[in-house]
Structures are given as structure tokens and as C-alpha cells.
């Protein structure tokens, strides 16, 4: 009995680790390759770099606009996150805790947005931004990202607010708080974890956005990393893979570090979103 159990457990870990290799190896291989010379890249593709060379990194940072693109992405992402958190926490609060008949209909109206494909809005938004001279600006990226992030973010906040007891609000009111003070002094401090969850989910989505950036920007001044990385595609077969891998590594290392720090919050957002939703 015991040996059978051990064998089963051994097999289980073996399969789980095999799967892990399939999931992680491509990314690890890419990062290792970025330290190799182009000769080594073709002759010894699977081995560790014999000499860890930073040449690819140096030339990418010197010759490309990668840092500018990262800066643009950071500006867009963090502006979006601030707006998303501000808008969805306040709207969610009013929709759950304040007493108005319209609330349930409005909540439904917001959550329907989860189903809407981004592509439907591309042509109208492109034309709108062209008319207003907003193409090639940070605003052209921030506005739609925020709009599309609201449904899920509001939903996550409302599910948290529904657990906050009304007595808490009553007590604060008796102590002389008005509604705004109740929100900022009593409710907001309680929502730290939910806020981090909403921020980390949206961070990944917005940082990685390709379609809005590709449609609304073509001036390199405003390009984000997702679009900028494409510049490394040369004419067919002429890609300098060493440099491309270095560029990819530079662009994904920050997000991987942030992910490893925040993964608890990201996981709870992803799983609660589906399991409770």
C-alpha cells in the first residue's frame, strides 16, 4: 500500500515537473540565448552560454528606442491604473452601498462590457481620435484602456463592498462623517487588497496591449513596448536573433519581477473573478 502510494506520488511530481518545463523552458531558453554570441546561438542552441556576453544588451540599448518604448508603456500603464482604481472604486461603492433603484440596471450595463470585443470599437475610436487630433498621443491609449478595464474592475470592487457591513458606515456617520469622508477615511483603507488585485490584473493587460497601440500610434515618440518590439523583425530571415532576444528579455524582466511579487493578488483576482462570478 505504502509503496504504491509513493510510486503514485513520484509519478505525479514527475508529470507536474515535465509540464513546468514545457511552460517555462521557452522563456528560459530565450533569456539564456540573449547572452550568447550569434555563432554560439546557431552552433550550441541548447547549452548554457560559454561566455556570458552582454553585447546584445549593449547594442540594443544603444541602437534602438527600447528605453523610450518602456518609458511610454510605463506612463500609459500607470496613468491607466490610477484612473481605473479611482473610477471603479467610487462607482462600485455607489452601486453597492448607496440606495438607488437604478443601481442594479447600471451594474448590469457596466458588466455587459466584459463581453464586448475590443475590435468593434477600433474603427469608431480611430476616426474619433483622428478628428480630435488625438492619434499619436498617450491619451489615445489611456482612454480606451480605462473604458475597457472598468467592467471587470467594478465587478471586483462590488464583490468586495458587498461584504462590508453597513453598521460600519452607520457608526462613521454617527461620529460625524459625511459620505465622502466615509468613503475616503473608512472604506478606502479597507480595500487595499482589492485595489492591489485590480491593479495587478490591469497592469498585465495594459502593459501587454498590442491592438490599441498598433492602431492609434505610429510615431515612435508614443509607441509602447508591445508595438516597438516589432521593429526587431528584419527582412525575412534577416532578424538579428541575439539582439531580438535581448530586447525581449529587457521588456519582460520588469513584468516578471512585478508578477512574482504580486502573484498572490493576481491569482485571487483571476480565480475569484471566474469562481464567484
Amino acid at each position, binding site marked *: 500500500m505504502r509503496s504504491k502510494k509513493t510510486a503514485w506520488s513520484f509519478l505525479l511530481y514527475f508529470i507536474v515537473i515535465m509540464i513546468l518545463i514545457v511552460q517555462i523552458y521557452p522563456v528560459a531558453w530565450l533569456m539564456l540565448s540573449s547572452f550568447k554570441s550569434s555563432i554560439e546561438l546557431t552552433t550550441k542552441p541548447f547549452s548554457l552560454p560559454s561566455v556570458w556576453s552582454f553585447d546584445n544588451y549593449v547594442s540594443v540599448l544603444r541602437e534602438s528606442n527600447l528605453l523610450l518604448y518602456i518609458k511610454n508603456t510605463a506612463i500609459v500603464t500607470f496613468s491607466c491604473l490610477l484612473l481605473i482604481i479611482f473610477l471603479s472604486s467610487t462607482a462600485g461603492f455607489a452601486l453597492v452601498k448607496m440606495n438607488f433603484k437604478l443601481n442594479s440596471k447600471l451594474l448590469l450595463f457596466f458588466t455587459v462590457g466584459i463581453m464586448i470585443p475590443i475590435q468593434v470599437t477600433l474603427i469608431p475610436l480611430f476616426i474619433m481620435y483622428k478628428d480630435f487630433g488625438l492619434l499619436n498621443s498617450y491619451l489615445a491609449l489611456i*482612454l480606451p484602456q480605462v473604458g475597457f478595464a472598468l467592467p471587470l474592475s467594478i465587478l471586483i470592487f462590488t464583490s468586495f463592498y458587498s461584504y462590508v457591513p453597513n453598521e460600519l458606515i452607520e457608526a462613521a456617520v454617527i461620529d460625524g462623517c459625511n459620505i465622502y469622508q466615509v468613503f475616503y477615511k473608512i472604506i478606502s483603507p479597507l480595500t487595499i487588497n482589492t485595489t492591489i488585485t485590480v491593479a495587478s490584473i490591469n497592469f498585465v493587460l495594459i502593459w501587454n496591449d498590442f491592438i490599441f497601440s498598433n492602431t492609434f500610434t505610429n510615431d515612435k515618440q508614443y509607441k509602447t513596448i508591445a508595438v516597438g518590439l516589432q521593429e526587431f523583425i528584419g527582412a525575412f530571415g534577416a532578424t538579428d536573433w541575439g539582439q531580438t532576444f535581448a530586447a525581449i528579455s529587457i521588456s519582460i524582466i520588469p513584468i516578471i519581477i512585478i508578477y512574482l511579487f504580486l502573484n498572490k493578488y493576481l491569482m485571487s483576482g483571476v480565480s475569484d473573478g471566474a469562481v464567484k462570478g
Partner: protein
Amino acid sequence: MNVLKDKKAWFIFITPALLFYLGTVFVPIIQSLNYGFQDWNGIKDARYIGLGNYIKMFNDPYFWNSVQNNLVYVVIVVLMQVFIGLFFALLLSYIKKGAGIFRTLYYLPAVVVTVAIAQMFRNFYSLQPLGLLNMFLDWIGLGHLQSAWLSNPDTALIAVSIPEGWRFTGMYMVIFYAALIAIPKEIEEAATIDGVNGWQLIRYIKLPSIKHVLSLALIMCTTGALRGFDIPYIIGVPGSTTELVTTYMYKRAFSTNQYGYGSSIAVFIVIESLLAVLLIRAIFNSRKGEA
């Protein structure tokens, strides 16, 4: 409490979010519907042509080709994300030590920038210079199977579908895993005492318990694949072998300036997604009687 019936405060809390949502999500959809009935290239005056664009769409062989490709894409993506994701989650739910670390690492591909993934796979598939996949085939002695996977018309569509499936398998695993470990232990214990074996436990206890999550994941994944865009757009081959409905819409609108026609294809994507949702719901609801 009067403070919670403060109309002014309610407006102040809701209006900003509502304006953003209306302006960037809702109004554009109405406009899309409207453009769909127009013949418009963005420069000369728009002309209403009724169902003209839709009639054109139904007679457009390139459009139908993209619909067909999209269905293959959906099948591959759903198989990888829902079925493999469920398999991972089941395995992980039996692990006592380290499940958290595995879960974190499985999810990792989902946070990597799409373009990076697309570029990475472009390298793996490459024949000239030799990419990772072809090197691997050579290494295990299957060198004769080497191919330029992305430009070979027989494999191109599958080759652009796999990266999308691969990157989000971990995300669906996280969703299923959370649902599986939320099943009350007593139910499993009671079943085990009744002599239910491992496979029966999965088939008759675990899967039915997470049915709601399964149907939701299937809806998310199918509608996600129906609007799949990034990877096929970035590494797909020029021509029609890897054209999806979204990439076709995008090219019509932004390369050939057929804004009206592009909008009618966009409306098609919405309708198609709605139909998929209704179909999946119907399938899961009809199963209710059996269980």
C-alpha cells in the same frame, strides 16, 4: 440612513466612470453599427447603402475563408486552454507540497508581452536559420520532418494557434484549480468511503461540482478565440492561410480604408460571439437533466 441616499454624492461617484465607459465602449459600438450600413473610406462623404456591406460580406470568399480559419483556431485554443488547463489543475490538486510554486510558474507565460511570445515562436518555427523546434526534431532523429512551419500552408494555421493556447493554459489552470480545491472535503471523503475510485471521483463528483466554472471558462475561452488577433496578426503569413476574422477586418479597415465594410465585419464578430455564448449555455443547461 440619509447619507446613503445622497443623490448628489451618488452622481459624483458614478458619473466619471460612466462617462469613460460610454465614451470608449458604448458610443463606439453604436457608431460601429451605424458605419456598417455605410459605404465610407474616411475621406469622401459617407453614403448609406443599407445592408450592402453585409451582402458583400456574405459573398466574399476571403471573408468565409477567415471564418473557417477562425473555427480551427477556436478548436485548437479551446482544447489547449480548457482541456489541458483542466488536466493541469486536476494533477495539481493532488499535490501537497509546492502546489503554490507550480501554480505561479505555470501562469508565467500569461504575463509575458504578446509580441515577445509571437517573436519567440517565430524563431522556434523557423527553418532558415534553424529554429528550436526544427533543431529539436533533428536532435531526436526526426530531422526529415523539419519544415518552415509558419510558411508551410498545411501547418501555418496550427502554428499560429498554438502560442495563443500555450500562453493562457496556465490561466485556465488557475481558475479550475481554485474551483477544485473549493469543493468541500466531506463530499470527497463520503464518496471514498462509499467505495468510489479515483476516476469515478473525478467524473461524478469533481467535474459536476465545478460545472459552473467550466461553462464560464468555455465561454471566456471561445469568445476570446473568436476575437483572437495579436499573434496571427504579428507572425501570420501574408495571404490567406492564417487570416482570422479579426485580422481580415483590421486589414479591410486600416490598410484599404474600407471603414464601412470593416465595421460590418466587426458587427459580425459581436453576433458570432453572442451566438457562441448562447450555444454553450444551452449545452450546459440541457446537461442539467442528466446530472
